[in-house]
C-alpha cells in the first residue's frame, strides 16, 4: 500500500512500522531506544510522529505503530517538534552531564532547563535496551527493578548475578555509555561481578569469559577448539578463504 510521509508517497507493507518505512525512504526520525536487533521498546518516545487518518490526527510512536491503512504521516510538525523539545528537556534534566544527551540537546537546539535539579552522575536514561539485550541472549541477569521515578536497571537485589556470563552485550547496546565495564590484568568487572578473561590463541589478548565459552558451546551445541578474538577470527577466516580460492584455482588450472 502507499502511505504519505511528509507529503512524499512511500510504499509500505501491511503491518510494517512507520519508522522502518521512513528510514527506507531516507526520511530521518530521531530515535534513542530503537535498535534493529532489539525492536519494540517504544520507551524514549523521541520517534513520535503525527498520523492523520479520516481527518483526525493522533500522536504515535513510529517505531511500534503498524501500518494497516493508507495513512498520512507528518514527522516534523510544529506540535511534534515542540513535544520532542520538551522530551529532550526532560532527558537533559535526568542526565545533565552525559555527553550523548548533551549532543542530542544541541542538535535539537534545546537549552537545559535551569529549574530542575539533575544528578550530574546519572548517565542511564532508562531506555531498556540493555535489559532487552540480556533477555535476548537468554541470560536474564539484569532487569528493571522498582517502578515509577525510582525505576532502575539492576541485578537481583543489586548483588552479582548468578546468571550473568559477563558478555557485556548490555554495555554494547547502551546508547549513553551508562554501563561500566572495567577490564585489566586479565579480569573483567561488570555489574559488580568479576570474571576471568581467556586469551586469544593467536594474539594473546584477554577478551572472553569462560562463562561465555560455555554459553556458546551450549548454544551452538558443538565444541570450540580454538579461542580466537574478533580480529584474529576475521584474519583466520580471510586466510582460510584465500587458501580455498588458491586451492580451487590450482586444482582447476585456472592460474594465469
Amino acid at each position, binding site marked *: 500500500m502507499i502511505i504519505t510521509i511528509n507529503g512524499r508517497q512511500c510504499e509500505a507493507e501491511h503491518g510494517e512500522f512507520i519508522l522502518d518505512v521512513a528510514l527506507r525512504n531516507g526520511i530521518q526520525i530521531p530515535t534513542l531506544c530503537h535498535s534493529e536487533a532489539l525492536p519494540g521498546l517504544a520507551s524514549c*518516545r523521541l520517534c513520535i510522529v503525527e498520523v492523520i487518518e479520516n481527518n483526525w490526527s493522533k500522536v504515535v510512536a513510529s517505531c511500534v505503530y503498524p501500518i494497516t491503512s493508507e495513512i498520512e504521516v507528518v514527522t516534523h510538525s510544529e506540535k511534534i517538534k515542540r513535544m520532542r523539545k520538551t522530551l529532550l528537556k526532560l532527558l537533559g534534566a535526568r542526565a545533565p552531564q552525559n555527553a550523548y544527551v548533551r549532543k542530542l540537546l544541541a542538535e535539537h537546539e534545546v537549552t537545559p532547563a535551569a*529549574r530542575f535539579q539533575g544528578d550530574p552522575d546519572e548517565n542511564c536514561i532508562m531506555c531498556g535496551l540493555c535489559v532487552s539485550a540480556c533477555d535476548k541472549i537468554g541470560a536474564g541477569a539484569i532487569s528493571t527493578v*522498582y517502578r515509577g*521515578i525510582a525505576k532502575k536497571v539492576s541485578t537481583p537485589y543489586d548483588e552479582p548475578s548468578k546468571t550473568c556470563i559477563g558478555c557485556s552485550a548490555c554495555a554494547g547496546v547502551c546508547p549513553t555509555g551508562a554501563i561500566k565495564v572495567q577490564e585489566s590484568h586479565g579480569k573483567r568487572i561488570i555489574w559488580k561481578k568479576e570474571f576471568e578473561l581467556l586469551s586469544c590463541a593467536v594474539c594473546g589478548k584477554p577478551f572472553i569469559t569462560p562463562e561465555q565459552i560455555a554459553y556458546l558451546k551450549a548454544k551452538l551445541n558443538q565444541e570450540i577448539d580454538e579461542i580466537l578474538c574478533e580480529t584474529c577470527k576475521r584474519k583466520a577466516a580471510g586466510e582460510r578463504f584465500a587458501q580455498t580460492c588458491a586451492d580451487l584455482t590450482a586444482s582447476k588450472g585456472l592460474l594465469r
Partner: protein
Amino acid sequence: MSESNRPKRTILVCCGTGCLANHSLKIYHKLKELITKAGVDVAVETYIKTTGCNGLCEKGPIVKITPDDIAYFKVKESDVEEIFEKTILQGEVINRLLYLDSVTGKRFKSHKENDFYKRQMKIALRNIGEIDPADIFDYIERGGYESLKKALFTMTPESIIEEVVKSGLRGRGGAGFPTGRKWKQCAGYNNYPKYVLCNGDEGDPGAFMDRSIMEGDPHSIIEGMAICAYALGSNTGFAYIRDEYALAVKNMSNAINKAKEAKFLGENILGSGFNFDIQIVRGGGAFVCGESTALMSSIEGKVGEPRAKYIRSVEKGLWGQPTVLNNVETWANIPVIIEKGGEWYSGIGAPKSTGTKVFSLVGKIRNTGLVEVPMGIALRELIFDIGGGITAGRKFKAVQTGGPSGGCIPESLLDLNVDFDSLTKAGSMMGSGGMIVMDERTCMVDVARYYLNFLAEESCGKCLPCREGIKRMLEILNSICAGKGLAGDIELLQEICATVSEASLCALGKSAPNPVVTTIHYFEDEYLAHIRDKRCPAGVCKELTTYYIDPENCKGCGLCLKNCPAGAVSGQPKSWHSIDQKLCIKCGNCIDNCKFHAVKIR
C-alpha cells in the same frame, strides 16, 4: 409450634471491610451465641448471617433484621444483648440505634427510608448486604445463575452479544469503552484460545466499589464472566485481584470452588457441553497493573508494564490471543442485562451513559460510603442529598473524580450531570467512580502534589514522558508548596502536561497530568497566591501559612489552647488568646477546633 411453621427471621450483620474494622465480627459471634443458647425457646426461628458491605460505612457496623425491616447503625458490642432481648425476643425496636437524619433529627426504622439509600438504584450492588457471600444458595435464592442458564440454553452467542450491545453498557473501570462492542470485536476473530479476564486491581485512592463487589457478591462476577465466555467460545478466565484485598481473594476463591461444585463452572457446565474455568491471579499491588496491557503482562509472569495498544487486546491480548478484559463492576451488571434485556438497561441513566454507576464518596463528606445511582445524576444531588454535604459545616470547594487520572471539579460545576462524557468535558473523568470531596481547608496545589506523588511511585516508569515528566512536575509542585515557586512555573507545568498527555505510552501516562491541568484551570488563583504572594489560602502548606487569632471573634473559650500540641497559644479564660509564631508548628488544630471562626490564616 412445629419447626417448619415457626415464623423465620434473619439477622444480617455487615462484615464489609469498614464494619469489620469496627469489630462487626464480634457482634456477629455474640449474637450467634445468644441465639444458639436460647435455641428453640425463641418464638421466631432466627438465622444470622454475615454480609458484604452495605455502603454506609460512615455509620457502621450495620445490623439489619428481616422481615421486620429494621436497620441498626453504629452498633457496638455492648448493644448486642439489648438487641437480642428487645428486638429478637420481643420484636421491639431500639430507637437510639436507628439511622438519625442529622438535619431533621428524624429516625428511620427501615434503612430504605433515609436519604442515603432512598435515592439509590442498585443493579451492580443488588445482592450486597442482603446475602452471605460465602453461601452460593443465598445467591441462587435471589435469582443467581438463572441468567447463565438462560444464556446457555435459550440464547445464541450472537444474541447474547446483541443484548449487551443494546444495553449501552460502558466499561466501569475507567475509559468507558462500550462493553458490547468489545465483545463483538473479540467474537469476530476466529483465533482460539480466547481469554476472559476480570480486572480486580482497583487502585484509585478512595475507590472501593470493586473490592466491595468481590467481597460481597462474588458469584455475580463469575456468572457475568461465564456468560461472556460462552458468547466468545472461551474456556479460560482469569480474575486478577490485588493481593492487599485479602477478603476479596478469599471470597472469590471460595465462590469459584462452590460454583464448580454446583456445575456453574468447570467441565460441561449444567450439562450444556460448554467448559469454562476461572483462575485467580493475585497482583502485587502495582497501580499500573490495572492498565489492561500491564495486567496481561503481569498474568504472563512478566514485569507489569503496558505495551503500545495499536493492536487491541480483543485481537491480540493475553499471550497474543483474543482477550476480553472487563472490570469487576462491569461483570456484575451482565447477569441483570441478560435477565431483563438490553433495552431495559438502556432505559436507565443518561442517553450515552446508560445504567447505574457505583460511586465511593469519601473525603470531607458526611455520609462516607458506597452508593449506586443512575448515570446522569447531578453532582450536587450526589454530594449533598445522598452524601449529606460537607462535614463540620464547612464550605464545599471541589470534588476529585476518576482517581489519579481524573481531575478536580469546582463548585461552579456542581450542577454537572455525572456521566462519562460530561466529566471528560470538564477535564476530569469517570474513572472507576471514586469521588473525593474537598472543603475550603483543602489546598488545591497540595492536592495536585498529592496525586503526582502517588503517580511518581505508581507509574510503571517505562516511558520517558510519564516517568521524567511526573518527576519534574512533582519537583516544581514541591517547590511551590514550600514557598519557592518561581514566575514561569505554571507555564513550565503546562508545557510538561501537554507533552506527557500525548507522548506517553499508555492511558495512565496520558492522563497523569489531569490533576495538574484541572487544578491550574479552575484554581489558578491559588497557584498564584503560592508563587507570587507566598501564601497558602487554605492554610495547608506549612511554610506559607501563619495562623492568628482575631480579637473581634475570640471569646476566650480556650479550645485552641487546649488543643495546641506545641504550647504556642496563650491567654486567660474569657479574654483574647494569641499564638506565638515562634512556637507554632502549623498543625491547624486551633483552626479546626475553634467554634467562633476566630482563628484565621494570613
